[in-house]
Structure formats: C-alpha cells, structure tokens
C-alpha cells in the first residue's frame, strides 16, 4: 500500500499496486495479496479535497509525526520525545514554547505537507524546556610539527533540552 501525499499531486489508485504483485513467485504472491487486501480495507480510496478533511484522515490513525524547524534545523518529532538543541537564550527551565515552523504533519498512511509551512491555526505543537545543560568535555589537540606550535582546547558545549508535547489539531483555521 503506497503512501498518500496531499500536496496537489494526482491520486493514484491501488490497482497498479495489486497488478504488480502478480508478477512475483506463487508462494510470495499469496503473502503480498493477503497483506495488501487488509491494508486497502481501512485506507481511503479517494483523496480528501480540503485541508480539514486531510487533517481528519491523519487524526484517525494511531500515531502522528511532524517535521518542524527549530534553531535553523529541521527535525522529525513525535510527542513525548526529548529534543536537544544548542543553548537558547532568554528561555528558562519550565517555559513552554510553541513550534511555529511546522513543514509537515503525517501518520502511517497519510502526509500533509505545507507550502512551505502549515498554518499555525491548524496544527499546534508545544515544547517544554526541561533543562539547560552542558555536554561532555571535548578535548581538541592541535599541533604543527617541527614549529613548536601545539595547544589543547577544552570545550563543553551548552545545550537546551525540550520535551515535545502532543500534536493538537484544531477544526477551524
């Protein structure tokens, strides 16, 4: 069962997938046919036309993920996971941040990709600052031979750790 992506692409039916399976050896085709049949039962055959309908399809599935930008980098995030980024200033432990750059929301069979972002009124994800910490000591030894130049640089990089909250879908834009 192929993934369905709702960003203006034409819907492709499952018939092509089923046809391809008949070219495999007999014993293998029995397994593939059984699995594709069970998946086709609960996945929609018609693509939703509106963003609300797309988000509704994503919500019905057991788990979702987002692709969000934070501190200039994109991360694939799910609820309950712990994100470590370089130290964010002006933020104290216990503060709740709202992720404003969400590029993609998806689940097992469906994906909604923003253009380039998903409107913040549709999908809301919060992240709680859990701690400001430092990494392990990194030691960099620099040397140029026969020149009498050598130095040892010790560095402990400061990090901020964030706990991602639940993905909240709102019905009204």
């Amino acid at each position, binding site marked *: *069962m*192929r*993934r369905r992506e709702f960003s203006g692409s034409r819907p492709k039916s499952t018939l*092509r*997938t089923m046809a*391809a*399976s008949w*070219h*495999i*050896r007999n014993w*293998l085709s029995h*397994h*593939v046919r059984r*699995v*594709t049949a069970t*998946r086709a039962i609960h996945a929609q055959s018609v693509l939703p036309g509106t963003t609300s309908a797309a988000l509704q399809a994503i919500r019905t*599935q057991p*788990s*979702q*993920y987002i692709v969000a930008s934070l501190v200039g980098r994109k*991360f*694939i*995030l*799910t*609820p*309950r*996971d*712990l*994100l*470590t*980024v370089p130290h964010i200033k002006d933020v*104290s*432990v*216990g503060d709740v941040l709202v992720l404003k750059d969400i590029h993609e929301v*998806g*689940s*097992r069979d469906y994906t909604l990709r923003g253009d380039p972002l998903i409107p913040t009124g549709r999908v809301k994800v919060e992240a*709680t*600052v*859990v*701690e*400001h*910490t*430092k*990494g*392990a000591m*990194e030691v960099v030894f620099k040397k140029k031979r026969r020149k009498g130049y050598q130095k040892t640089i010790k560095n402990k*990089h400061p*990090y901020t*750790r*964030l*706990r*991602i*909250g*639940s993905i909240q879908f709102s019905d009204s834009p």
Partner: protein
Amino acid sequence: MATQHLWRAQLRSYPANGHTAFLPQIRKVVLEFCQHYPSSTNTRTFISNHLERVARQNPHIEFVVRQRNGHEPIARGFYANGRDKVIPLNKLEVTGIERKVELLMDSSGAKIRPLKGARTVESTTESARGVWSGLHVDTPFTI
C-alpha cells in the same frame, strides 16, 4: 485464533517529564563556606547579599547554608534522580557564584554524556510511518 498474551513489559510506561506537566528536577542546593579563609570571601558576600533573592525567586528549591571551617567553598545540588552535583566556588567572583548556582538550578541531574549526533532526538515512541518493507512497494524486487 490463539489467545493474545498480555506481556508485562507492554504495560510499562516511560517517564516524559514536561510532556503534560513539568516537575523541576532540582530539589536542594547546599552552600558550604568557611568563616575564616579568604577563598570563601566571595561566597560569604553572595550568601549575605544575594542568596535570599535567589531563594525567593525559586520557591520549589530548598536552600541550605552550612558552615564548614577549614575547607574550600562548595555549591552542592541534589536532584530528583538521587544524584548530586558539586561545584567548587573558591576562584569565582560573586557574579560567577550566582552563575554556578543558576547552572545547578537549570540542570536535571542526569549524568553528563556527549549530546551531539545520535542524542539529538531521544524518542521512546515507535515511528508513526513504520519500517520500510521491500514487499509493499509498487515494484517489489524480483530475483
């Protein structure tokens, strides 16, 4: 159909502090100083002038001041996971001592480990999209 077993490990839950509610991990900060040695001068100044303000701003933390004569000044933080962090304060100015106390308050008490690369996103949930399967694609591999 065979009976579905409910394994004990399936009922396990993983801690996710901050997901719904956030509990500060710092429990107690102990400041130890010497009454006579000059290395404790800045620590004594901090305790006299600034500690009350810091304690009032953080009502969830227990602040303890201990006199420990003949020893260098120390800030010790106790955390919810049972670990403690010890920071010497003997070569610091008053602002530096305040920064070290803030470091203790901001930390979670977890052991310091390398945080780059593989530890950027630490997740206990299974992936939403599942694992890729070579059989469930448009053109499966045929020998």
